[in-house]
């Protein structure tokens, strides 16, 4: 009996993924090929063409302001990029932005999810309110935060500071990165909450009751029962958010335009400014390639980490 169980619990066998040639499944796959090929080809073109073009441009001299500059550039564009201090700043900014927003949304989302799982008065309305920021366009939410919330004169924060007898803070000038992190966290907290709330709700309540009988207090129940149960959902939140947060652009464009100086310039904004403010298509493409590589490195580690989690 134990042998049978072992087989069940072994990680999926290689042949389960790619059946050996000549097997029934393999033959079936081959027969289905003509049917799926149109969509596969379309998707390939869809993703391959931009990738190849980006790669191609990154090795070209190509400046929209100066049509006479043409020809193969070798690795000049990359050389120019990595020797530019702006690039390294933008890389650090990207990681700070992604890391901070992830930390805030995952921790906040987990706590809110546990809170929203409790019965309390007005829960339905509170839930709708908590989730609604996710449906606001990034540009709009950036504008709201810039003009209604954090503006030193008209903003709510300014009014509160005034009411407390303090000198209002010009958030975007003095704490630009923090301001952007707050905006993006506000946008993504509902997403984390939504995913984690469904996960919390799927927890078998008798596990909590068993833990209560075993003598676990509320905090121990959270750390020993609820949090492990949420592990998988948290990984999913981290993976999806990372993919989107690596390319945050609208919020920065609307509020700080990458500034002051390069304080809030992330990789996406750097590429934009290269391509459309300095009209350096070659340099921008080199930045794009770096962004692709970065995203792939992150994705590699994330998928590995989550793959392990899903094995539980």
């Amino acid at each position: 009996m134990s042998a049978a169980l072992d087989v069940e619990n072994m990680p999926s066998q290689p042949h389960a993924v790619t059946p050996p040639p000549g097997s029934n499944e393999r033959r079936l796959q081959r027969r289905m090929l003509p049917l799926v090929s149109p969509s596969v080809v379309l998707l390939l073109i869809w993703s391959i063409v931009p990738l190849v073009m980006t790669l191609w441009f990154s090795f070209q001299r190509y400046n929209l302001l100066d049509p006479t500059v043409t020809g193969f550039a070798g690795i000049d564009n990359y050389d120019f990029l990595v020797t530019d201090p702006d690039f390294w700043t933008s890389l650090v900014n990207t990681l700070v932005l992604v890391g901070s927003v992830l930390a805030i949304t995952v921790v906040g989302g987990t706590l809110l999810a546990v809170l929203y799982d409790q019965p309390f008065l007005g829960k339905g309305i509170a839930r709708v309110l908590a989730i609604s920021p996710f449906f606001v366009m990034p540009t709009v939410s950036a504008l709201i935060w810039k003009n209604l919330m954090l503006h030193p004169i008209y903003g709510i924060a300014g009014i509160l500071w005034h009411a407390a007898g303090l000198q209002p803070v010009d958030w975007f000038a003095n704490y630009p990165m923090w301001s952007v992190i707050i905006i993006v966290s506000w946008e993504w907290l509902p997403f984390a909450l939504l995913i984690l709330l469904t996960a919390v709700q799927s927890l078998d309540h008798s596990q909590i009751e068993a833990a209560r009988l075993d003598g676990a207090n509320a905090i121990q129940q959270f750390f020993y029962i609820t949090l492990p149960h949420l592990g998988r959902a948290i990984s999913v939140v981290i993976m999806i958010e990372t993919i989107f947060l690596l390319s945050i652009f609208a919020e920065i464009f609307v509020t700080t335009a990458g500034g002051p100086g390069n304080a809030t310039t992330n990789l996406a904004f750097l590429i934009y400014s290269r391509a459309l403010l300095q009209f350096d298509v070659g340099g921008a493409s080199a930045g794009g390639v770096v962004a692709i590589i970065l995203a792939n490195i992150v994705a590699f580690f994330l998928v590995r980490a989550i793959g392990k989690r899903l094995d539980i």
Partner: protein
Amino acid sequence: MATLSLRGVRKSYQAGFETIKGIDLDIADREFVVFVGPSGCGKSTLLRMIAGLEDITAGDLLIDGQRVNDVDPSKRGLAMVFQTYALYPHMTVADNMGFALKLAGVSKTERDAKVREAARILQLESYLDRRPKALSGGQRQRVAIGRAIVRQPKVFLFDEPLSNLDAALRGQTRVELLRLHEELAATMIYVTHDQIEAMTMADKIVVLQGGIVEQVGSPMELYNHPANLFVAGFIGSPRMNFLPVTVASGDGAGNGVVALADGNQVAVQMGEALPAPGTPLTLGIRPERLYWDPNGPFAGEGHLVERLGGLTLLHLTLTGGEELVVQTDGNDPVQPHVLVRSAVSPDECHLFGADGQALRRPGHIAQPPARPLPGEAPVVATATA
């Protein structure tokens, strides 16, 4: 040592609607008590109130004479086995069983020793490093029991622990639980909707319906002396036959005659005088007490024969229109669609008044002595080792 007392215990989930409508009950030390009743009668609610997972709306719960209504579940000295087992899926079997001790700050070596001991009792030693997911249903169930054993509680609570097992495993686990009860000499409260589990395991059965106790007693007392129609119908399989009758005659000593719908007369013997002739009553007869008799009062035509191997069930429609089930030997050649007659001995009849309450039967003692409790009986030396 653990005795448990419930004094007027009530529970309302919503104001104005009571789920548990006042329960008084005493549970002796080392007793195996089974709460049995149909689905939704409040068994789980009552058990959860004892465990402390539900508040007690009114009344007192005493453990060893101490009122524990407001004592935290973990401080009541009891352990519960849930219907779904409620194992912690991300912990190994050993961690599952040792979780309570870990929270209580017991050292790792002591914890390991206790977990090993419980695993030995439950034959789980080779699974200690597995996650619950990698176990079969029966093994999970044993882990859930092991988790309870490790804490050495005064009282064990079981909420339908066998309902997720297949029939063969259920029978086996039933025996194991009884063995465990002997070995641990602990008080156990066991909830089930299955009267067979109740009959086979209990020292004392508490029959619940609609949030009230219908009857409390030993299995055989409930079987032989059901207090009312509900208990009579609930305990025993196949179900007791109920036939409307009227009293034909009766003496003061409880001997008498009742008439069926078709006029046939049945002699009965009760422990108290029958009501006046003409009074409508319900006659209850267990299928296994009926036997074929060419002169018997129960005349009818069979319309269905169930052959279960060891026994045969014949479903009859009596000439008066009532339905009757007769249980006979497995080799009974009886065929349906022929007129048959059966009879019952007068002292095997049950009679119920219009209010559903039973007339006292001969030989009824209020509380017959239960079987000796574990630890009290001269058990073999290994049981307490």
